[in-house]
């Protein structure tokens, strides 16, 4: 089975965001970049699938040469090789077209992506790739039972879980709970250094959206400390009007 996994290189979740001098992007000074936390579930599922069914895991990452540590981490977790797509876009559909184009060439049986990135928070990639590739998708998946040409999935929906069936080839977006991502061991890290990373230049695609401003959330006016539960209830009713 040929397995694809899409991985994003994102600011660590503990990053304090500062706005850059252009007013429309973050200031990257001092920011540590890591593998997107949800993509750890996608990588783990890809490797576990190969371990069970045989085949190959190919990782795809859009980004510059600075993404290499993240790609190497995924290779150390067990991916066989990687494709880095040399590009940068803030339009999630442009990213989807670039990924779809690269994935189509490899013709995998299944593609794993993370539920969302902790930077863009689009949660859109699985459906976008599905539409572009002409494949079905299941998003926010917390359980997957693969059985040859089909799978039973369980995914989180409002107020419960949806159970359904999906035919391969397909795209699956992975949510926490699906598995426990492995930590690469030292020999794996050494081996990953030899694994190939191909670089490809994506086709020019016109962007549909443009960020004109990036701002920090408006500051809170400060916490009002109260001494009793009665006083709190009164304020929530009279001042805040929420109960």
């Amino acid at each position, binding site marked *: 089975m040929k397995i694809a996994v899409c991985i994003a290189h994102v600011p660590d979740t503990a990053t304090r965001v500062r706005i850059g001098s252009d007013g429309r992007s973050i200031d990257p000074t001092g920011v540590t970049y890591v593998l997107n936390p949800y993509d750890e579930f996608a990588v783990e599922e890809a490797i576990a699938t190969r371990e069970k069914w045989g085949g190959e895991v190919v990782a795809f990452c859009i980004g510059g040469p600075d993404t290499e540590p993240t790609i190497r981490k995924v290779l150390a977790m067990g991916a066989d090789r990687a494709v880095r797509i040399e590009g940068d876009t803030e339009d999630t559909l442009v990213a989807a077209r670039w990924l779809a184009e690269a994935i189509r060439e490899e013709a995998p049986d299944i593609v794993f992506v993370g539920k969302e990135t902790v930077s863009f928070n689009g949660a859109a990639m699985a459906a976008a790739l599905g539409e572009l590739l002409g494949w079905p998708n299941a998003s926010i998946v917390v359980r997957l039972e693969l059985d040859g040409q089909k799978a039973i999935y369980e995914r989180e929906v409002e107020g419960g879980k949806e159970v359904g069936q999906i035919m391969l080839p*397909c795209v699956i977006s992975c949510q926490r709970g699906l598995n426990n991502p492995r930590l690469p061991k030292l020999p794996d890290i050494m081996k990953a250094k030899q694994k190939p990373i191909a670089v490809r230049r994506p086709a020019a695609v016109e962007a*549909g959206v443009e960020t004109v401003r990036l701002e920090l959330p408006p500051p809170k006016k400060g916490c009002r400390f109260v001494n009793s539960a009665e006083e709190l209830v*009164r304020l929530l009713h009279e001042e805040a009007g929420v109960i």
Partner: protein
Amino acid sequence: MSVIAYAEQRDGQLRKPAFEVVRKGAELARELGLPFYAVLIGSGVKGLAERLGAYGAERVIVVDQPELAAFAPAAYGRALALAAESRNARLVLLPATAQGKDLAPRVAVRLDAAFAPDVTALRVEDGLLQAVRPVYSGKAFATLIFRKERQVISLRPNVFPAGTPQDGISPQVEVLTVSVEEADLRAQAREIVASAGKLDVAEADIVVSGGRGLKGPENFWMIEELAALLGGAVGASRAVVDAGWRPHAEQVGQTGKVVTPKLYIAVAISGAIQHLAGMSGSRVIVAINKDPEAPIFQVADYGIVGDAFEVVPQLIEAIKKFKQA
């Protein structure tokens, strides 16, 4: 041209996010001087059109076919894109729910539209749309403009007011038929296992969350009772979910759910940056923590410094008294 909104239904029930997108769609259509259509997709769903009238839909397009009984992203995407094309939609609004997140990108690809997911503010300036969406898990807000004639936008639930339903508007129903192909049904829902009638944190108006300071799962009765009294949902920090005290579905934060209730009460939660990412957009935040230096107080509107085991029972009593008065 027109504006259309996807009125999500599940198991034949309209949910609150459907009313929110219909209300916002109708309002934007008026501002843009365009006709507005709400779209219903499913099987046996025609009867739901009437209720959409009460939220401002004068026209409802209904795609009502047996093959669409269960949610299938590709089939529903085809139906919604067809509805958009048939009315030459300039703007398609969806809720950023589990369904909407699967449909919006598919519809945007089909329409070759510009696409923005999970938007929290949307306005028209000089006839052009501007959207605001949280990025970096709520740590910043991006303002976007669109470079294509058509736009597909999903709206974060619980942010845009649905308003009160008005009586007496009976919408005009227009039926549309879509030829669903076998390939469109290669992923399909079979059943939805509801979490025992519980309100979902992401949909609730009031959320009461508990953290590691509660010391054990046996103490969550306080949180449950407080939430029940307020008609709210129970949430949890990741520390509590990782410890197996509460299910992951209740986790609020960067790797849990993002919530925007009108009232969020954080009990014995320190307020780590990843937790704040999930709840800092709440309208009013209350923190109860024994440590006056806990970072949660930096985002809270109201705070009580004290032992949760004393304060929460007092709060339960105070609310009971308030409700009786």
